[in-house]
């Protein structure tokens, strides 16, 4: 009963939100200024909880991995080019490196210890999900990667390789975001391409 009530009201609120978003979409879609200096070597970035995006159980730094160490996105997100789901790296993948790499500074040492403890305890790290669509929208990653090429990821996720902590760079939950891009590329805007 109460869930329905909640669902109903939230839906209304959300509906209104869409309207607002509609207005501010262009602004939302505007290029995201880098939140870290655009140097090949990411500077240590203390996690004072002041960073954008949700705080993760482990302060995993995409900027360090993707920019400083030049690891390709698909090394960890292994199924993005073949399946609708991008794939979350298994703990084994993390340990593949961190068995030997223990971290250079105190911050990283602490964080990597967390990972190792979890691995030894055979407990997977429960990351907080940043990017997700409503359950009635189907997003085939493989098709978009194939179409958009090297910059595919950044198109929606923003410049993750410069984010110490991942946040939702673009308003991807708003259908207008999808539509405008589909318009740009002149690809199908048929509803049942995504909604079924």
């Amino acid at each position, binding site marked *: *009963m109460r869930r*329905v*009530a909640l669902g*109903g*009201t939230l*839906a*209304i609120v959300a*509906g209104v939100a*869409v*309207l607002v*978003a*509609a207005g501010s*979409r262009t602004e939302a879609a505007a290029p995201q200024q880098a939140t870290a200096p655009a140097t090949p070597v990411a500077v240590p970035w203390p996690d004072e909880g002041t960073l954008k995006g949700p705080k993760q159980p482990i302060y995993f730094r995409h900027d360090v991995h993707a920019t400083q160490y030049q690891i390709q996105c698909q090394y960890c997100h292994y199924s993005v080019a073949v399946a609708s789901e991008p794939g979350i790296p298994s703990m084994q993948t993390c340990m593949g490196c961190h068995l030997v790499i223990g971290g250079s500074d105190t911050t990283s040492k602490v964080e990597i210890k967390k990972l190792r403890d979890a691995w030894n305890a055979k407990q997977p790290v429960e990351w907080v999900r940043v990017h997700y669509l409503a359950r009635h929208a189907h997003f085939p990653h493989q098709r978009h990667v194939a179409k958009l090429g090297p910059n595919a990821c950044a198109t929606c996720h923003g410049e993750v390789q410069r984010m110490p902590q991942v946040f939702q760079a673009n308003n991807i939950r*708003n*259908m*207008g*975001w999808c*539509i405008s891009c589909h318009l740009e590329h002149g690809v199908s*805007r048929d509803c049942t391409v995504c909604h079924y």
Partner: protein
Amino acid sequence: MATSIVDLPTGHTPYPPITQTHADVTRDVVGTLSPPGKGYLALLAAAVACFVIGAATFLFMVFKGLGYAGYQPPIFWSVFITTFVFWVGIGHAGTLISAILYLFRSPWRTAVYRSTEAMTVFAVMTAGLFPIIHIGRQWIFYWLLPYPNARYLWPNFKSPLMWDVFAIGTYLTVSSCFLIFGLVPDVAAIRDKVTGWRKWLYTRLAFGWQGTDNQWRHYSRAYLYLAALCAPLVLSVHSVVSWDFASSLIPGWHGTIFAPYFVAGAIYSGIGMVLTLLIPLRKALKIEHMITEYHFDNMAKLTLLTGTILFYAYGMEYFVAWYSGNTFEQTTFWRRAFGPEWWGGWTMIVCNAFVSQLLWFRKIRTNLTALFVISIFINLGMWFERWVIIQSLSNDFIPYAWDSMNPTWVDWFIFLGSCGWFSMWFLLFAKNFPIVAIQEIKEFIPMPRKSGAAHGGHH
């Protein structure tokens, strides 16, 4: 008024002589605004109670699901749409009497048009709730409205339901304007006789009315145009509503006769409701001498006319079903008369086609008790007409899917709620606004010779 209706076109029944003076009229009408008695309060309380029950039931349904109402596929519309069309229909007498009869200069409207206009507005207010009540996800009803959005999505203007949104919207706006506008001189007349919050209210609603010639000139012109603007709505609105059904392919709905048939029915039910309301009302407000047998006689004639049109329409439906040789149509109409739900069909035919024929007799037309009883039958019959139309869904093309209508308490409580909501507004109006148009009554009062000049060409 500029085109005063005192100089009647020939052939009109002369307006019965009025013995009172201007002062009397004003007094009597203002008298209707006297502090309410116990009976009135009791009625109001009952109305509010019904409304609260209905509202509570609606909330229950929103949280628990439409399934608690008596929907039984293939009947995907049920009591809610029936009631929706019922109230829209009621709404038609008002505009007809105020606008069309005004344009036709028929004198008898003056005493009754105020109340019927009020009824119209409230009926449409009630009807307007049902499209929202009956949809599956009430919380996103606004998707039915065209507004710019990030999805680049617009409503489907091909859909009769969209036409509805606009038809009802327009009708509500225009008829409210008409009501408020018509009130101006009268509100001004009583403005000076009341105190307290009413004074405050009337002062605002009078829009600074002084009754100067200049104001009268503009007023009567504007009133005329507004009436002209309303007139087509009488036909358009219910035609559009009828297309909700006629533009589908359901046997029993898919008929070209629907628009005129619905308009006639709407007026019929409208007048029926007017009678139901006015007969007790004039007693309660002690204005029998203003709303007289003369008025009822005329309304009864209108009822007779529209009722007879309905009679014809019913006949035609059956004829066409038979003549078309279309097996689906034939089955539907056969079952309408002799199927498991035969009682619905016959209630409709008896209450509308047959009962209305009693009004050929002047004795009955002028016997208010008889009229009141008949008007009740009319309301019942017209509700069932819509019920029967909806019922065409229960036996359409695929026999395997057939089922029958089977409403639940949710349907009935929400119907009750709509009645409460309507009565509540009407009662409040009756006690707080002049239910009879003071100025226009006054026009029929023979002018005192000496001061005649003072009134000029008009007034």
